[in-house]
């Protein structure tokens, strides 16, 4: 049962994989870099 739990855990990786996530993630990334740039 342990092995089965571990394999189901691994099957849940990657946690999320979608176009929208990439867009949102990069957007957030750029926003934060922009704030750092403005502060500089």
């Amino acid at each position, binding site marked *: 049962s342990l092995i089965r739990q571990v394999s189901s855990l691994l099957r*849940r990786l990657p946690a999320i994989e979608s176009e929208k996530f990439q867009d949102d993630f990069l957007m957030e990334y750029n926003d934060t870099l922009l704030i750092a740039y403005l502060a500089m």
Partner: protein
Amino acid sequence: EEQVLIIREKVAELYESEGEWSKAAQMLSGIDLDSSMRLVDDKFKLSKCVQIARLYLEDDDSVNAEAFINKASFLVSNSRHEVLNLQYKVCYARILDLKRKFLEAALRYYDISQIEKRQIGDETIDEEALEQALSAAVTCTILAAAGPQRSRVLATLYKDERCLKLKVYPILQKVYLERILRKPEIDAFAEELKPHQKAFLPDNFTVLDRAMIEHNLLSSSKLYKNISFDELGTLLGIAPQKAEKIASRMIYEDRMRGSIDQVEAVIHFEDDTEEMQLWDQQIFGLCQSLNDILESMGNKGL
């Protein structure tokens, strides 16, 4: 009028002892409570209205009962008689229940179940009665139309630890946690219902069927991103066309997010959770299951 009043009360008493509830109610409703001939105090009026309503309710006659409860509602606001107030509340909740206004009925049943006093006037409030009110609140909430308001009442009931002891608790838990209910569970719950709660609606479904189908549909929308109506019909135990009809009504009433592709006969569920929040939820689930694995390894001494 005094003599008429006394005779009516006596005859009504006889009818009551024979279980002729509606006849007793009709006998009492002949009393002229608004007569100008004699002064009738509010308490007497209130007690008569509530008594007549209760008698009609013994025969599940919500229409006539409601007429007298509405009269009583003008009097109850400034009444200090706790027994009458409590009887009024119970009547009002039962009328809402009979009229299938389940959410409002549930809120009133729940309010009644939270009474702290155990002795009101010469009436003893026993735990059993409160438990009945609580159980009625749960039943009505489950029968209410799925949506945000119902979810709020479900949350209140689910967090009320008194519900743990109720027979309907297992189904309350599944409904609150938005899990799909299987046929056997629904049938077991159906046994607890009152006749009017099993009545057939115009579309030849019972109130319970509709409530359960909508609930399962809402639960499916949490499980799947999309599903064909054939599969959905099988899952819900109804014809695909019926599933499509109910889904479209729920989407229209904004009780479920989604879109229907009628050409492909597929429903696409929408989840307005932000992608980043969805990501955090997935991570939360991953960490929890990692934690569980580590704990079970710890228990096995690995």
